[in-house]
């Protein structure tokens, strides 16, 4: 291919005549050498191909992979954010529900505590009344017992005194008379 290009160039030079000599002169003045340029172009093309094949393509593939990873990461982050928002909403709902439930429990506890206090108060009142009644009964019994004891003691004293008086005052005639009456009473049984 390079040889055909050089051949075409030589042919053009030969057929150019006088006009071509001007171009050739310019090319000489600027140091342009067609075979060198062609060789450089070929070398550039080869280098380009090699770079494209073994450098740019893997780099681009790596970039594509990284872009994909970044895109996935962003997508994942968005999903995470959505899920985070949902979780926050759910947790807020749970907190609200828990608050309502806690309020219910507190109300129930207050109600139970009030009922318990009322019950305790009623029991205390009942117990106090019962204790009072028992105390009154005990006082009444004690009073009766004291009266009985006093009555018994008085009776004992009266009897003892009467016995002593009778022992001194009764004469034999009185006793004989009483004995006769007792004999009649006992023999009539």
């Amino acid at each position, binding site marked *: 291919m390079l040889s055909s290009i050089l051949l075409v160039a030589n042919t053009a030079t030969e057929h150019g005549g006088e006009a071509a000599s001007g171009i050739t002169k310019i090319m000489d003045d600027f140091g342009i050498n067609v075979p060198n340029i062609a060789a450089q172009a070929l070398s550039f093309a080869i280098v380009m191909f090699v770079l494209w094949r073994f450098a740019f393509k893997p780099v681009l593939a790596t970039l594509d992979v990284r872009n994909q990873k970044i895109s996935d990461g962003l997508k994942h982050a968005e999903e995470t954010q959505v899920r985070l928002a949902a979780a926050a909403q759910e947790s807020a709902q749970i907190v609200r529900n828990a608050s309502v439930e806690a309020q219910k429990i507190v109300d129930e506890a207050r109600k139970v505590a009030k009922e318990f206090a009322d019950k305790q108060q009623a029991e205390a009142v009942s117990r106090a009344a019962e204790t009072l009644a028992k105390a009154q009964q005990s006082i009444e019994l004690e009073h009766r017992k004291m009266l009985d004891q006093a009555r018994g003691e008085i009776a004992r004293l009266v009897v003892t005194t009467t016995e002593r008086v009778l*022992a001194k005052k009764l004469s034999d005639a009185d006793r004989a008379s009483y004995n006769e009456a007792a004999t009649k009473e006992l023999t009539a049984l």
Partner: protein
Amino acid sequence: MAADKKTKLLAKQLFKLSVVDGTVSPEQVTGVLGWIEKHSPRHPTALLKTYYRYIATELAKSVASVEHAGPIGDATLKQIEAAMTKKYQRPVTATAKANPKLLAGLRIRVGSDLFESSVSHQLATLSAAV
């Protein structure tokens, strides 16, 4: 030693043999004691104790122990004997015993029966009633 059932039964039978017409006969008692001495039954001591208790109880039923405070005449004792004899349908003899604690009146004991009409008894009744 406590008398067993057979000994008590034998003592009861001997006691019944000792009673004639509702009173304890000394001749019968002598005969019973002779029989016990001759035959020497089982547990003779327990038998004799049980027999003695029956005889003593029966004899006590024939005696009216009259406790009294103040004078008491023979006529009164005779009256009590007659009343008790009639009541128990057996001869009852009365024995007098002074008891000043009665203050006035009588207490008659025949066996386990007690009859009382005395000032101390009335005072005790009054004290118990109060």
